């Protein structure tokens, strides 16, 4: 009996407990003793007590039993030696497991007189639509049969215990319904735990991501010294030589970091003034009608996928700027088709709605009393904006700019297409440079072995990027929070 049946039965028990609980609690309504909780709280409590412990048990049980099964299979397999038919233990376990799954498709009669060799078994499985790897060995067949038997037994035991738990929970909850039972507090406590659990998931995921990157980064630094990575000025990973032990390539972070920061700077130089001024216009000058049209349109820009911006830069803007510069000098173009300037410009356009939307919120959050106070003293609108509103909103705007900057640093698709992949170290904004994100994409999209430094460097780059944006976000949040305190 598959696990889903047990889960369904447990849910049915929960629903029944809900209905019974509700009825039993309703009996007390209007009695001599004032009821502590309203009937639906009793009902929910009965439902939760019937389902939650049982389901949690099933989850733990199935995780535990799969671990146990793995040990169980491994114990029955012959010990791994250099001349084993299957060279790798985990590969061997995988073969047994898929064989066991295949056997489940066969009917009982066939299973009773199972052939002893895989050569005879294979056609029977193929007839059922099961294709198995050809290096499945004969000795695996009895192991697979035993595996199926053990896992069936485990599953049945777990399911029955789950059902007993569920019934017991329902019974305890329904019997416990008294006028003064604090069902509401119980239900609310469980809801609280559920909310806490949800918020923990995000944190745990972050921790998981960081840890997984960190371990790969350690592997990378085992083959490349820290100083070569952080202070190296040459990026030359030598793909061609990957795997050859003597030439590890050069993994200098500096050109990439410089490219990342340079492009982000150009993008901010475009996005911040334009975004800020459009925010001032929308928050302070625009009539309601104009605002209702302009603001959603501007935010539409934020909805365009970044790869589309990248295509725009690659196909339209880059060649246009190159031709324009060629026309200006009358011959040789001084702006390359792929350049920091092009990438920064397009990324800046992408970031305009981010800046303007955040700043608009911050400017509108400046209390009306500030505007009135200034206007009431005979200040003009622009004086009010310059001298009162922007200073009051400044910390928030700085926070918004930093948040925008960390987006610019993390942006990938635009720079892949618009800035090129050449890891130069230059100050000329019209030349190609590349960024950390582009190189991560580059290093991971080859078909290299996963444990070569050429691949592992992606994790070191990733964690560097993570740390840089994390610091910017922390600073931004700190500033925004400080700003909030001002009016409270």
């Amino acid at each position: 009996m598959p696990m889903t049946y047990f889960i369904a039965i447990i849910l049915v028990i929960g629903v029944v407990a809900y209905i019974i609980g509700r009825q039993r609690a309703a009996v007390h309504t209007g009695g001599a003793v004032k009821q502590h909780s309203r009937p639906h709280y009793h009902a929910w409590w009965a439902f939760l007590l019937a389902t939650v412990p049982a389901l949690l048990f099933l989850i733990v049980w199935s995780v535990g039993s799969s671990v146990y099964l793995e040990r169980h299979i491994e114990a029955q397999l012959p010990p791994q030696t250099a001349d084993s038919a299957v060279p790798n233990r985990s590969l061997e376990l995988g073969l047994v497991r898929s064989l066991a799954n295949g056997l489940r498709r066969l009917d009982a009669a066939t299973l009773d007189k199972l052939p002893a060799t895989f050569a005879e078994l294979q056609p029977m499985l193929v007839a059922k639509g099961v294709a198995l790897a050809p290096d499945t060995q004969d000795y695996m067949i009895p192991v697979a049969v035993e595996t199926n038997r053990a896992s069936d037994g485990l599953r049945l035991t777990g399911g029955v215990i789950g059902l007993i738990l569920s019934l017991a929970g329902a019974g305890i909850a329904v019997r416990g319904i008294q006028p003064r039972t604090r069902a509401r507090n119980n239900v609310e406590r469980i809801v609280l735990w559920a909310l806490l659990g949800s918020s923990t998931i995000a944190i745990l995921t972050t921790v998981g991501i960081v840890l997984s990157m960190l371990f790969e980064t350690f592997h990378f630094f085992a083959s490349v010294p820290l100083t070569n990575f952080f202070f190296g000025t040459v990026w030359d990973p030598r793909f061609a030589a990957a795997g050859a032990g003597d030439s590890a390539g050069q993994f200098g972070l500096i050109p990439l970091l410089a490219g990342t920061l340079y492009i982000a700077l150009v993008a901010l130089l475009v996005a911040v003034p334009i975004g800020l001024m459009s925010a001032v216009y929308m928050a302070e000058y625009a009539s309601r009608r104009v605002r209702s049209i302009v603001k959603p349109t501007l935010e539409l820009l934020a909805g365009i996928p970044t790869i589309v911006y990248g295509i725009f830069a690659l196909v339209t803007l880059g060649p246009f700027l190159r031709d324009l510069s060629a026309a200006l000098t009358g011959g040789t173009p001084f702006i390359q088709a792929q350049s920091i300037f092009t990438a920064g410009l397009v990324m800046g356009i992408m970031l305009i709605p981010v800046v303007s939307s955040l700043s608009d919120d911050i400017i509108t959050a400046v209390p009306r009393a500030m505007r009135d106070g200034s206007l009431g003293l005979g200040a003009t609108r622009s004086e009010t904006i310059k001298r009162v509103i922007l200073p009051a909103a400044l910390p928030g705007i700085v926070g918004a700019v930093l948040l925008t900057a960390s987006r610019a640093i993390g942006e990938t698709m635009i720079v892949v297409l618009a800035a090129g992949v050449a890891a130069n170290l230059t100050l000329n904004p019209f030349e190609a440079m590349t960024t950390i994100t582009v190189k991560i994409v580059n290093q991971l999209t080859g078909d290299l072995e996963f444990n070569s430094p050429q691949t592992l460097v992606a994790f070191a780059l990733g964690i560097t990027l993570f740390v840089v944006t994390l610091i910017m976000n922390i600073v931004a949040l700190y500033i925004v929070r400080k700003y909030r305190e001002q009016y409270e």
Partner: protein
Amino acid sequence: MNIMTEQKLEQAVGASMTAKTNEVIKMQGRKVGVFYGEKQALFDVELDIRQNQVTALIGPSGCGKSTFLRCLNRMNDTIDSARVTGKITLDGEDVYDPKIDVVELRARVGMVFQKPNPFPKSIYENVAYGPKIHGLARTKADLDAIVQSSLQKAALWNEVKDRVHEPGTGLSGGQQQRLCIARAIAVAPEVILMDEPCSALDPIATAKVEELIDELKQNYTIVIVTHSMQQAARVSQRTAMFHLGYLVEEGATDKMFTNPDDKRTQDYITGRFG
């Protein structure tokens, strides 16, 4: 600062037969109506504001007294949907005349708001804000003098003279409100409008602000909106009673509080409605 031309004086006096010879009409509303979108909030208000006197506007919530106050320095312009009809004059000049610059008008008719709203700047910067905008001080010493005298006039100087460069938001509520009054005075206005200036203050701070208002009327014309009958009685010489967007009755404060003509005024003053 309030020297009027002979002609203007005559005009102003002529405009209202109720003014005594020693009283000058500073501001005047004729058939003032205000619309917020389609809804009319104020109907045909006729009111004179006398120079160097305190005029109190009273009435239940939503009666239009704040709306009228905000017409006097065109603060209603900042509300998109608001539209003002009728005529309001300052020294005989129509304040809604297109030739009048609203910025200049607001420098002449200052405003203090219900909730103290100091800018998140230092005390000094708060007071210096207006003079800087209007270029009233040529040198730093001039500015210092304006700030000091404004704070003195607002009876705040002694409390803050050692910390004028600390943030204005760090003061207590009553001090903040006096700071806002100092800020308004610093621009050297002729009229000061006060929209329930004490409603966010405790009784002690209220007493200080009221005392201040009484002193300020020597040099300024003051219009105050208040919900407190006692306050209107204490600080004002003239009282105007609003109800449902209409001016019910206007007259000398003594008379209004002892022997009002209108039943609604009597009911309101004695606390029977509103």
